[in-house]
């Protein structure tokens, strides 16, 4: 039985009267692929913000491999092994592809404080960046500004940035949003082919992708967990079917 990677206890985020996340208890085992689904406004992205540390929780606790990380700022959580991608592409607009990747590979290295040697003289960081970019076929475009990449390539670079820190927990926020079917397939294969040691939490609107990749599914509704279980269990859950009626096929 593998270790528990992520556990949340009555996690809440209230914005005044708005209860974005309203008492979520989550337990994800190491190596698991968990899809987080639910209608718009269910609190999925807010949940990710809470897990990554970008938004402070109103109440509740978060544990990463048993360690309480609730009070830790996001950069400390990254050091502990959390990586994430964003629903709206969050790259470094005026920097080149390589610079984006280098920022990611320097992120958890002491060398990021070096004020004298040129960035690309740091062999290891550069090598890591090269490997990642080559995996996604972006190495040839390393000197291109982000704006010159296609949307699909930008989404891939998003994932490059998240993987650079060798995360133990990967939070993917709608990685296939806006992608063509071919591009979606590429991402799906990629996620499926990730190191089985990495735990993956995946927010998805595309049910095909979600059910293809995930072993277990958590359904959020109005900030609460409505249902949780294997793909088939959730698919067959009448409540879940009800909230998706008219929204899409299960």
């Amino acid at each position, binding site marked *: 039985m593998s270790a528990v990677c992520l556990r949340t206890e009555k996690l809440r985020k209230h914005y005044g009267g708005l209860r974005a996340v309203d008492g979520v208890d989550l337990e994800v085992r190491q190596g698991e692929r968990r899809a987080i689904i639910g209608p718009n406004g269910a609190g999925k992205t807010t949940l990710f913000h809470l897990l990554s540390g970008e938004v402070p929780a109103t109440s509740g606790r978060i544990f990463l491999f048993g360690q309480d990380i609730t009070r830790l700022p*996001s950069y400390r959580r990254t050091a502990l092994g959390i990586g994430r991608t964003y629903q709206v592409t*969050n790259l470094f607009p005026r*920097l080149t592809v390589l*610079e984006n990747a280098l920022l990611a590979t*320097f992120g958890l290295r002491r060398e990021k404080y070096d*004020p004298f040697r040129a960035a690309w003289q740091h062999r290891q960081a550069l090598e890591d960046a090269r490997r990642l970019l080559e995996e996604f076929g*972006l190495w040839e475009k390393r000197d291109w500004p982000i704006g010159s990449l296609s949307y*699909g390539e930008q989404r*891939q670079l998003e994932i490059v940035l998240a993987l650079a820190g060798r995360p133990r927990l990967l939070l993917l926020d709608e990685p296939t949003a806006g992608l063509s079917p071919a591009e979606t397939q590429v991402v799906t294969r990629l996620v499926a082919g990730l190191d089985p040691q990495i735990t993956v939490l995946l927010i998805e609107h595309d049910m095909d992708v979600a059910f293809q990749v995930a072993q277990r599914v958590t359904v959020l509704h109005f900030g609460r967990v409505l249902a949780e279980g294997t793909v088939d269990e959730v698919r067959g859950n009448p409540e879940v079917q009800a909230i998706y009626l008219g929204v899409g096929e299960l």
Partner: protein
Amino acid sequence: MGLRWVGWALGAAVALALPQVLPLYFTHLVLLTMIYGLSAMSLDLLAGYTGLTSFGHAAYFGAAAYTVGILTTQHRVPPALAFPAGVAAAAALAAVYGLLATRAVGVYFLIITLALGMGTWGLAYRWSSVTGGDNGLPGIPPLELGLPWSTADPKHLYYLILVIFCLATFLLYRLVRSPFGLSLRGIRESEGRMRMLGYNTWLHRYVAFVVAGTFAGLAGSLYAFYNRFVSPPDLHIAASAEAVLMVILGGAGTLFGPLVGAGIVVFLRNLVSAYTHRWMLILGVVFVLTVMYAPQGVAGGARALWARWRGRAVTPPVAGPGKEPVAER
């Protein structure tokens, strides 16, 4: 590549020959350009590279200049000691102010640095017993460092400042190309993303603030020994605004752009002041025109042109062996 070395050699030759060939008047202007250029480049580190526009940069310049002035004219401290003391004072001020200013970003940062800058001006203006108040501190001795040539002669001072300037510029140049420099640009582009990549962004911003203030202090110390006189206008918001203009006019985020901007402002000011008292009016107009029509500045515009020229010569990328194209075109 060879072209670059020729360029550097040419530049060095010009810089070295300048005071021997051109009238003294020009030597003075180039000297001032180096001093203000250093200050502008240090501001670019903060504004152009980190995205933190400070409207109080003259405070560190002035703090160093005043420290030199106070130590040499009131306490008979030898110039060789007063010089680094000035830089240290600026660094200390930046360290303190930085704790406050880095609590905020964006426009808040702007007005906080503005307020801190003018607060420091108020200190120079009202604390007459120490700073000489409105009258300032005249009679600063020349920067004699025990060299065989007296720096009371502006030509000799030029060479001394040239050396210091080149050294400082070299350090800044290395800094912006280093991983730390890259992290500053990352913070400028998306601070949240940086934090998610593992960077303690506050620390990076704070260090950048202190480094920028320190280099501004270096410029200020040089200024005190060049001008031999320091007074409240040297720390006024107008001085800070001139520094901002130098950065924008030259091109924010290019490091050497602001040096060009400093040159433009120094030469323009001298030219204008020969004919009219209305320098501030012209400064304001140049400000407005630059923001409206040339926000990228000289270097920024040059870079854009260069990129477009190169862009046409770039060959389309080739997919590696065995790799499928990953995106539809």
